[in-house]
Structures are given as structure tokens and as C-alpha cells.
């Protein structure tokens, strides 16, 4: 058989959205394996953060529950921060696909509508599991232990996956609306990086000054940190006088945010993406 096309032969069975999504997700995972920076972000960085914060701040910051408890307090926060950074994997991947013409190539193929976005989202979810596992192991090394039931711990990990899913859609939105991967990095540093610090990620919110404390109390990254700490049975530093509802009901507040992000960002992201590739 010749490789030269002949007009009688045709490919293309009917629409196969799951298959198409998986093919594009597989590509995204191969990309991560072959990009040293992306792989570092997903593996070495989370481990390093756990070790650095545990050993550098561990001695200086005290939380209730006695000495040595900071490392247990830390884990909920560092999980929350790393999951938030998950926004950038998908945003960068999508922005570079738009820039280098890969999106056009996919769109010229008879694939299911939405498979490109869904493929990126699935790849991002799977990529998100790796740092969760590695951080858990690094946490065990620095003395982090859970003090709750199996069900609570499982709920905590489920919450992390849900949060990653929500972050994926913010990533798709950023990756579709920003002009280049460089712009994505800019936003990462200016907007999201500080957002993860003005929260209860690394210090109890009561230690923050006035406005910042209020901001941190309502920051969903705080509520995720606190919810995880509660589910793990770790110190939360959240039982103080005048704690607002998001602090006292961190799990509910986090779930509301996840639902809001998915309900608002997912349709918006799809629309912005379609417009960004249409011309």
C-alpha cells in the first residue's frame, strides 16, 4: 500500500469524545515527563517546600499544641499552596499550544468539540496527583502524622482532588485569555504567588495585621488549609475569638468556592477558549 493518499480511502468513524480527550491527555502527560521544568515543578519543588518550611520556620513559629506541632500545621497549608499553583501547569500548556499552532492542528482534525480542553484538564488532574503523593511522603519524613479516622483522611484527599479540578478551570481561563506562556508566568508571580501567602498557609491568620487578617480569613486558600488540617486531625490555629464563618466552617466554605469556580470558570473558559482560537 502506498503512503500517497488516494481519494477513495477515508478515515473517521463517528464522534468519540472520550477517546479524543484521552489521546490529548496522554500527550499532555508525555509533555510533562519531557519538560524538565514542568517535572521539577511537580516533583522537587513540593518536596523542597515541605523540607524548607518545616526546618526553617518550624522552630520560629509556634502553634497551639506544643513544640514540634508546626510541621503538622504546615502540611495543610503547603498542600493548599501547591494545589493552587496547579493553575499554571494547564495555563502554560494551553497558552503554548495556542502560540505554536498545536491548537490549530487539533482543530483541523475531525475530533470531538471540547476534546482539546478536556484533554488538558484530565492531564492536569493526573499531574496534580504526583505532587500530592510526594508531599505526603515528605510530610511523613518531617514528622507529619494524621490523628483522625480513615474516612476523614480520605475526605481530605478527595477535597484536594476537587480543588485541583477547580484550579484546572482557572488555568484554562488564564491559558485562553493571556497572549503567551510568558504572560502566564507574569500573572503567576504577581497575582497567585502572594495570594497563597496572604492566607493561613504558613502562619496562623491572627498573626496578620488588620486588613490582611480579614483578607486571609476569607481567602479560600486559607479555608482549604484549615479544612485539611481539621480532616487530618492536625492543629488548625483557627479556634480564636471572633473567627468569621469561613474560618469556623472551612470545609463548607471551601466546597462553596469549588462549586462557584467550576460553575463560573468552566463555561466562561470554554467560551473564551473558543473565541481565542476562532480567528
Amino acid at each position, binding site marked *: 500500500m*502506498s*503512503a500517497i493518499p*488516494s481519494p477513495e480511502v477515508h*478515515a473517521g468513524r463517528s464522534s468519540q469524545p472520550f477517546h479524543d480527550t484521552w*489521546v490529548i491527555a496522554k500527550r499532555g502527560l508525555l509533555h510533562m515527563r519531557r519538560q524538565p521544568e514542568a517535572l521539577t515543578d511537580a516533583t522537587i519543588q513540593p518536596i523542597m517546600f515541605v523540607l524548607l518550611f518545616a526546618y526553617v520556620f518550624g522552630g520560629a513559629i509556634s502553634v497551639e499544641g506544643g513544640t514540634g506541632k508546626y510541621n503538622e500545621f504546615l502540611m495543610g497549608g503547603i498542600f493548599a499552596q501547591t494545589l493552587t499553583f496547579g493553575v499554571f501547569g494547564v495555563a502554560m500548556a494551553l497558552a503554548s499550544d495556542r502560540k*505554536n499552532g498545536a491548537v*490549530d492542528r487539533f482543530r*483541523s*482534525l475531525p475530533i470531538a468539540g471540547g476534546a482539546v480542553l478536556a484533554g488538558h484538564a484530565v492531564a492536569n488532574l493526573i499531574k496534580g496527583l504526583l505532587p500530592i503523593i510526594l508531599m505526603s511522603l515528605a510530610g511523613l519524613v518531617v514528622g507529619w502524622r494524621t490523628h483522625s479516622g480513615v474516612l476523614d483522611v480520605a475526605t481530605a484527599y478527595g477535597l484536594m482532588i476537587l480543588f485541583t479540578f477547580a484550579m484546572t478551570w482557572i488555568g484554562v481561563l488564564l491559558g485562553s485569555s493571556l497572549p503567551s506562556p510568558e504572560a502566564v508566568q507574569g500573572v503567576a508571580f504577581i497575582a497567585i504567588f502572594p495570594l497563597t501567602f496572604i492566607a493561613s498557609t504558613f502562619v496562623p491568620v491572627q498573626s496578620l495585621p488588620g486588613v490582611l487578617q480579614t483578607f486571609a480569613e476569607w481567602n479560600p486558600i486559607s479555608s482549604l488549609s484549615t479544612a485539611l488540617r481539621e480532616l487530618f486531625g492536625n492543629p488548625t490555629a483557627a479556634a480564636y475569638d471572633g473567627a468569621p464563618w469561613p474560618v469556623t466552617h472551612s470545609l463548607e466554605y471551601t466546597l462553596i468556592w469549588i462549586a462557584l469556580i467550576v460553575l463560573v470558570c468552566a463555561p466562561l473558559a470554554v467560551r473564551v477558549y473558543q473565541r481565542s482560537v476562532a480567528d
Partner: protein
Amino acid sequence: MTAPPTNAIEAEGLVKRFGSKTALNGVDLTVPTGTVTAVLGPNGAGKTTAVRILTTLSKPDAGTARVAGYDVITQAVEVRRNLGLAAQDATVDGLLTGRENLIMIGELHHLGKKASRSRADQLLQEFSLADSADRLASQYSGGMRRRLDLAATLVARPPVLFLDEPTTGLDPRARAELWDVLDGLVGRGTTLMLTTQYLEEAERLADNIVVIDHGRVIAEGDSRELKRKVGGDQLQLVVRDEAQLDHAASILQRGAGAEPQLDRQARRVTVPTTSGVAALAAVSVALADAGIEVDDLGMRQPTLDEVFLTLTGKPATDESADAGTGELHEVSR
């Protein structure tokens, strides 16, 4: 499958605007099934915009187009099933190997895993990429990337192929290699539409050439017709001593039987010719007899700029919006 339509590509009155800029200003195109059409034009003429509309990537503001018999707007999926597109900047995936690139395209065409693999092997062989099949495409040379890109467009054996500036940025050797590959595609039932900035490339590959400028078709025809319009081959002479330029010009005028053009600063005379090598031989003998010292003498093709100058009365880079509309109907008959 039903019989293929007479015309693989039919476009009528395509208009596309980006803000205040009109990229396409009423383009009609007809490409009969099984033929090769080159769309020739300078940067910004609207070539890529036309390709993007015909391949369903972009929607026209006005006009209609059918590819392989299907409407590009209302039957986009059927159109995609029937086309292969090699975009301008060879959009192969640098983080995948050559083989993985082709298998992925096969799977996205729903060929199935096994068929995708064997099709990839076949194409890698055919495009002399078998030795580099398992290297990342980012390590390929420019020519190899183009070949891989072209192979990717052929995975599902589409009846209609679009190649947007397939050789731009390639060195002359890689360009010649790619031309050979494209030669192999031509004349076996596949319809090919390519865009190019090079008259030589259009002439070498295409049955029919469409010249576009500022979003309009300004000329159309096979290369012989087109060359008749623009004067075809030229004899070009560079003399060593400027003082001998006029004498040399008169010899060229006699040899080629046409009015020569002089560029005194470059000590260059150019004259259109239809008799080719015979004129070249006669002129070189006459120049030697007259004792004129020659730096360079040869046949050359008109450049795209000269084609545009002849067709529009303005160079290809001229940005004025209505360039050459006067000649449009005269030449595109």
C-alpha cells in the same frame, strides 16, 4: 463513498476582516479535483487567511466555500475529515518523537491503535524519517520538521491537501527535497492547494496559479499564461565596465528582440526573452566578438516583485488598499 465532486475546492466572495483591516476582500477560488493550485502572493496578501477559512479554522465574514463537496461552515466536521493541513510554521509537536506525532494524529482520526502505528511506520519510511523516528521532533532539522508535518497531513489519506508556505524558511537543498516529495503527491488523485511567495515554486508544482494581493485575486492561469502576462524568462547581463553598458544593451536587444532595461548603478541589463538558451548562446558569442567584459550572464525568472509590478503597476510591498484593481478583471478573465 460517493464519487468526488468536480471541484475539490470552491470559494465564492470570501471576505474576512480583522478589526479595520480587510484581509480578504471578495476572493473566488476554484480548484478542480485532482489538480494542484498555487496561491501566490507577498506577506499579508491574505494567503493564510484564505487557507484558514477553507480548513474551517476561521469563519468568513461573507461568502461561501465548499471543500470536498462540504460546506466549510455548516459541515465543518465532514470538511475536516477530508482535508490535511500543513500550517505555515510546521506545527509538529517538539516534545513528541516523530513516530508519536504521527500515531497521535492517526488516533485523532480514529484509525485505531494498530492501524495508526502501521500507518506511521509507512509514512516515516516514505518520508525518509525512519532513522529518526524515535527522536524528539524538536531535535529535527527544518527540512525534517517540514517532512514530518507533511507526513502528518497524510495520515488519514485525505483527498484534499492544504500546504501553507511549505518551503518558507528552508535552505535551498531542503526546499528541493521537499519539492521532490510534493512531486510524488501530485497527479494521483489528490487535490493540492499550496501558498507560496515564490513564483519558481508555484511554477514548479502547480497546474494553476492564483495571484492574490491585498485580499483580492489579481491574476489567475497556468504558469505559461501567467508568464505571458509578466514577460516570462529574462536574460540578465552584468558588465565589468560601465562605459560598455550601452553597447552591451544594444547587443542584448538584438539577441532577444525586446526592449532592455538598464540599471546603471549595478551595471546590469535585463531583457525579456522567449527563445531561452538559444538567445543566451547568441548573445554570449556577440558579446565576446564585441570585446565586452562580462561579470555575469544568465537566464533568470521574474521575481515576485516584478510579477506584481507588471500586474499591478506597484511593487508587492505597496500597502495602498486598492492596488491594481484596474488590471484585475483584465488579467483574471
